[in-house]
């Protein structure tokens, strides 16, 4: 699926009249609409979904349509507007868009918040700036060419007169909205590219930021749900006698709108709900999945990766090119089910009433919540308002709407505002997961050590939370191609390169997880590039660089691959890590790179050390990244640091295993994520660029695992082909 926003740069902006003396511009920002991420279709016609407001007191308010899930959009998006507006950053405030009232297209996913909004946000800021300059010129009766905007004021250069934006707002609001306002030359940026601390920093460090779990309404009840332990199971019968006598319990109601059916206990406090749940007696109808075994499924994936595949890419072999392999190798790379394990468990507050329903949700998909709740409670969508709270982590989990549906269902049943809260165990077991997959790799090198064959076949599952593919999609190679970023968009030039997909269905609820399809494919690809380099007796860095032409750009599916940009980040990471410098004994070094979804280019050099007990410690990660123009370097670096931690948790941390249809993990004890003492030293080098900015939420994740496992190979000679790494218990390497 191509992205409509990349080609259609047309921006509509209109002035909104208000009763106050403010200048308000309405404009439209695209939603997340990348494949597999379920973005709502863009609204037809022009319905603004974003606003820029300048009040008479000089306050600049930017309405953000993207959810804050820790990626800093509530800071970076206003920075873009403020730059073109020539605003005084200290006077900029941000408000969160709420569904309804013209906000038709809200959604956050696909690392697309910055890339998709870059032009509309700049244009909105520039439009307001031009109107304010015109208003000042008219007030002074001077030529507008002699006026300039600067830090929240318009200055008349010849006389030094100055009018603040607040003073000009009313007059500006009466002017015609200009089309095609000039955009600034990036060399003159004063806000974009500078370090700006998070706009929400203060409320966070004082404990006053409102996350989903912090929403409190008058008369609100607290509920928690006992869900079927077996995936897809149902409630056969339930007895609420004991639960209803538990202190503070008010009601017990069945729930079936989420990912797992169950019974909700509604109480006066969270603790009363948790205690009441312990006293519930439920008999389950386990359904067809009670025999589902994750280990058997893993074997099935492995076997399927050998089966005949739907071809997703096949490069021609140039005439006269020799493709006789002197050495051929093959390997299978396995990736397990993974949980998001956001630190704030799923939760949602719903107040369902006839004709006026309100939802407060830590969500990446308020639009979809509205649509799906409307269908569930059989009320028109216009009567439903979704308030987006701060989210304690997202990573794709909050693109699912199951937890909001459950809250609406419970609120409707008990006719009261209700907060439905998931325990950590619920969150670990009953969400959607990163699908498990296997990648079958075959390749060869010729007598001179050049790669002459490459085939990568992914065996995996579609993302079930968005529904199964239609018969037409199932038969379409494009559908499966787009379900394997990191595989078909292989950036290297290898004659006859071929990729494929073998769909393997499972009953496990699956959905987007940070970087979606890429981590498993990229782990296999970047590891196997290493294997081929070693088979050819060549250095893995030099081998990669030899397959990337600085001037070559090509298209893989709908994605644009720029070999030169990838080459530069690989070379930069290697240089900064001093690739050829000797490491202490027992240490190893590995490299991996990636072009994420046709956009951001990122490479790591990892250094890992091994203990005498066989334990592994990742000591240092050197990153080089090209993400176009950087809005907020502090934000970009934070995403890389966080992406490294996230990726590392898949290498030396946990996995989700399933036995008898039940997820076996329950908390951070049996699903470890990395901790302070396991965090490597991270060094980040950003390639200066004047290209449009590209996403940074997801791109840092995929190359982490292969960089680290390549380093482990370098240190130990052991090739890791299945994650997480299984090591003797020791610091930094449980399992």
């Amino acid at each position, binding site marked *: 699926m191509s992205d409509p926003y990349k080609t259609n740069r047309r921006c509509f902006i209109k002035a909104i009249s208000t009763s106050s003396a403010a200048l308000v511009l309405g404009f439209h920002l695209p939603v997340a609409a990348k494949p597999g991420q379920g973005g709502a279709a863009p609204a037809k016609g022009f319905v603004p979904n974003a606003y820029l407001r300048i009040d008479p007191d000089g306050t600049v308010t930017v309405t953000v349509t993207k959810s*804050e899930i*820790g990626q800093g959009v509530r800071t970076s998006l206003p920075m873009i507007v403020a730059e073109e507006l020539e605003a005084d950053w200290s006077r900029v405030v941000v408000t969160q868009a709420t569904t309804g009232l013209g906000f038709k297209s809200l959604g956050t996913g696909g690392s697309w918040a910055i890339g998709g909004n870059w032009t509309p946000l700049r244009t909105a800021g520039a439009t307001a700036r031009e109107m304010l300059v015109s208003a000042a010129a008219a007030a002074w009766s001077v030529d507008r060419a002699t006026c300039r905007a600067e830090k929240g004021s318009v200055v008349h250069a010849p006389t030094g007169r100055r009018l603040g934006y607040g003073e000009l707002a009313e007059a500006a609001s009466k002017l015609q909205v200009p089309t095609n306002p000039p955009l600034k030359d990036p060399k003159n940026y004063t806000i974009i590219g500078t370090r700006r601390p998070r706009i929400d920093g203060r409320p966070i460090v*004082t404990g006053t930021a409102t996350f989903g*779990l912090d929403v409190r309404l008058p008369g609100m009840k607290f509920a928690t749900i006992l869900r079927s332990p077996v995936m897809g199971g149902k409630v056969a019968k339930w007895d609420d006698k004991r639960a209803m006598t538990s202190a503070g319990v008010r009601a017990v109601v069945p729930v079936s709108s989420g990912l797992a059916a169950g019974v909700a206990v509604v109480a006066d406090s969270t*603790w009363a709900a948790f205690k009441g749940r312990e006293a519930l007696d439920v008999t389950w109808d386990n359904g067809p999945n009670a025999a589902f075994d994750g280990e058997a499924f893993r074997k099935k994936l492995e076997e399927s990766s050998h089966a005949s595949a739907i071809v997703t890419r096949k490069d021609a072999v140039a005439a006269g090119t020799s493709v006789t392999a002197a050495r051929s190798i093959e390997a299978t790379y396995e990736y397990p089910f993974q949980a998001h394990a956001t630190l*704030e468990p799923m939760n949602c507050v719903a107040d369902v009433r006839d004709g006026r329903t309100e939802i407060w949700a830590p969500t990446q998909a308020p639009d979809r919540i509205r649509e799906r709740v409307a269908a569930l409670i059989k009320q028109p969508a216009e009567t439903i308002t979704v308030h987006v709270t701060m989210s304690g982590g997202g990573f794709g989990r909050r693109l699912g709407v199951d937890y909001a549906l459950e809250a609406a269902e419970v609120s409707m049943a008990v006719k009261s505002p209700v907060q439905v809260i998931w325990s950590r165990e619920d969150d670990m077991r009953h969400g959607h997961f990163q699908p498990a997959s296997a990648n079958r790799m075959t390749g060869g090198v010729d007598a001179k050590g050049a790669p002459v064959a490459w085939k990568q076949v992914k065996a995996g599952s579609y993302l079930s939370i968005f529904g199964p593919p239609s018969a037409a999609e199932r038969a379409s190679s494009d559908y499966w191609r787009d379900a394997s970023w990191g595989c078909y968009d292989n950036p290297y030039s290898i004659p006859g390169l071929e990729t494929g997909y073998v769909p393997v269905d499972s009953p496990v609820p699956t959905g987007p997880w940070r970087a979606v399809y890429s981590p498993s494919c990229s782990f296999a690809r970047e590891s196997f590039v290493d294997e081929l380099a070693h088979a050819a007796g060549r250095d893995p860095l030099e081998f990669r660089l030899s397959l990337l032409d600085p001037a070559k750009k090509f298209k893989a599916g709908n994605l644009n691959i720029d070999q030169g940009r990838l080459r530069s980040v690989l070379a930069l990471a290697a240089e900064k890590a001093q690739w050829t410098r000797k490491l202490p004994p027992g240490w190893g070094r590995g490299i991996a790179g990636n072009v994420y979804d046709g956009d951001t280019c990122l490479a790591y050099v990892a250094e890992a050390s091994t203990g005498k007990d066989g334990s592994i410690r990742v000591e240092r990660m050197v990153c080089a990244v090209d993400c176009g123009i950087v809005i907020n370097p502090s934000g970009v670096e934070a995403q890389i*640091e966080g992406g490294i931690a996230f990726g590392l948790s898949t290498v030396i941390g946990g996995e989700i295993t399933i036995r008898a249809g039940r997820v076996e993990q329950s908390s951070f004890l049996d699903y470890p994520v990395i901790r*302070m003492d396991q965090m490597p030293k991270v060094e980040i080098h950003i390639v200066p660029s004047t290209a449009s900015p590209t996403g940074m939420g997801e791109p840092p994740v995929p190359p982490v695992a292969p960089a680290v496992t390549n380093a482990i190979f370098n240190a130990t000679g052991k090739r890791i082909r299945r994650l997480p790494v299984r090591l003797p218990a020791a610091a930094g390497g449980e399992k």
Partner: protein
Amino acid sequence: MNENLIPQDGLRLTVNGTQRPASAPPDTPLLWILRDVLGLTGSKFGCGLGVCGACTVLVDGEPVRSCMSTGPEVAGKKVTTIEGLSSDASHPVQRAWLAEDVAQCGYCQAGQIMTAAALLARNPRPTDADIDAAMSENVCRCGTYQRIRAAIHRAAAEMKS
């Protein structure tokens, strides 16, 4: 705040310097007394099992998992939550957190800050190893560890000067 809780006579807690009546069944974890009874939602629920640190508060200056202790256990002791560290972000640890732009989603940070404040109170010049030892029970799924480390060193330097 919730008026509907079963009254439990006699439990008075000293939270952030103020004596507060806290009506809740005696087995109620301190975390839920703070959040559901006293309306102090700054302390977070991450696991309820003592394995993530999101709920960390200070009890007589020591970091305590509020999800693992009950009202009666802290009666007569001084409980400090993130709201009580300072409401204007003036505590050196909060200032350092802002200066290093630590937070991503921010959910773990109340627990991280309280744990760091306790560390610095007993060890004004922590080494990296001291930081590892004190902070490794606190999960940050967003991976802000490098900045937390920098912020602790910054706060230590500032508190000394």
